[in-house]
């Protein structure tokens, strides 16, 4: 195993466990930020430079800020420790471990550790951008429409009151919608 994989793997697993186990949602959110930055580092280690930067900009910079924003606005109490029962937890753990073992065995068989052959592709901005605007142009445009729809939908959902016809004063505080 390579060194970045060990270090990043330990960081990622620890922070993911932190998200699940932290009592306070804000602590979970901060653990998730560490996790997402760690994933960006994994992308960088895998030569996906563009994705590493976009990961930080989109996930750490936009999505998680929005989540923390909402957590701060809602002032949620700490969750009392009422996770699922012990029996269910053990069951979930066993299922998870089984899943991990099965997929890991398959992965090791399918993709054995071997010397790399051929050209290594680097996910530079130019390469990814060229692919996005040629082969994947239609999905890219559709993604734009999806984002637009999500923006409008979020603004509508987060409004406190819907302005009725003839009711000009209630504009609604759409601060959450603006935050995105």
């Amino acid at each position, binding site marked *: 195993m390579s060194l970045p994989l060990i270090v990043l793997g330990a960081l990622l697993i620890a922070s993911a466990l932190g998200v699940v186990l932290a009592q306070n949602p*804000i602590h979970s959110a901060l653990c998730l930020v560490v996790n997402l930055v760690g994933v960006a580092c994994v992308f960088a280690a895998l030569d996906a430079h563009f994705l590493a930067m976009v990961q*930080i*900009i989109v996930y*750490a910079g*936009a999505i998680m*800020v929005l989540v923390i924003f909402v957590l701060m606005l809602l002032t949620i109490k700490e969750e009392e420790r009422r996770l699922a029962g012990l029996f269910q937890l053990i069951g979930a753990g066993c299922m998870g471990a089984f899943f991990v073992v099965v997929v890991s065995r398959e992965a090791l068989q399918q993709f054995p550790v071997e010397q790399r052959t051929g050209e290594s592709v680097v996910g*530079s901005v130019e390469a990814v951008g060229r692919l996005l605007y040629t082969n994947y142009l239609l999905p890219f445009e559709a993604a734009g429409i999806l984002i637009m729809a999500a923006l409008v939908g979020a603004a509508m959902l987060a409004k406190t009151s819907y302005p009725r016809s003839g009711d000009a004063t209630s504009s609604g505080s759409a601060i959450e919608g603006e935050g995105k």
Partner: protein
Amino acid sequence: MNAVIGIFIKGFIIQQITLGLASFCTWVERKGSALIQDRVGANRAGTNFFVGDLLKTDVLVLQPLSFLARNIVLRPAFAVFRFLGSIGVINTLLNDAFKALFKEDFVPEGTSVFMHALGPFMAVFPVFLAFAVIPIAPDVTLFDTTIRFQVAEISTGVLFLLAMGSIAVYGVVLAGWTGNNKFSLLGALRASAQMISYELAMGIVFATIVLHFGTFDLYQIIEMQSGSILNWGVFFMFPTGFLCFLILFVVGMAETKRGPFDLPESESELVAGYFTEYSGMKFLLFWLGEFAEIALFSIVLSVFFFGGWNIPFLELPEGAWWAALIGHGVFMGKVLAFSVLQITIRWTLPRFRYDQLMSLGWKMLLPLSIVNLIVAAAWKLVS
């Protein structure tokens, strides 16, 4: 191994430059604000150091000192000290820092100490990290090895700047939340909404710049502006380049949460905004981060629009160490000029209202930058 040591040395140098720029901004803020408000400003600390006085008061220590040490070392050193004190440098850099270091480190009730300390850390960390991708001088060839004065030679420098800008929100949010206080929370909400809003215009301006230069590498962007002054970013595809510069300047003022955009810390409404509950060195760290941000935005402006280390109509020889030194001096001169300009604006203009701030960001800068991008793209297509 050599590469690792080189990176450490470069990181150390750039760290020192960052701190130096931040200190300079602090001093300009103190003395410049005094100048603007017709005050004298800091001029006392350190002005009372005379060798003769010391000899009188502290005979035991200084009597053994020979005539030579007194006159060659102490007298000039004290003279420099007095001069620095009279222009306020000692006060802003030495006295304030020591005062902050010895103050009580106050942590409000009901928050964890770790989270409270994380706030100022996260306010400073992304700004300092962003300096890693900035080339501070042209390449130097020493002993057949080319040295590039850039810590992280990554091809996606512009995106890295954007990423660090988007991470900077966390410091503010954490500080506001751990303050456990209405004022801090309101300040943090205002700050994060403001930063996210202005980031959009910043991203689109960056896209326009990348469209023009055709690269994300900051070193190449500076290299492309060498030669004639018309190669500078401000003049590209007139007027799009100049509009980019204006938008980025306004966005920079808003992102540093200063100047007319300092609603998050507006002292007349919220005590000090998101860092109300911080004292001592943690409080000072927020200021350090703010001044480092001013320096960073000045650097970004001079890299993108004013040619970095390029001197118009003057080609410096490539690879010579003295050329690199001159280039670095020119670069820093541009950066300092922009820093002074930002601080002057901060002390000149009155504060915006919150709705004015939001409508400036969303209804003016964002559409303007989008139109600018489209015009630049059309121009690029035609030419």
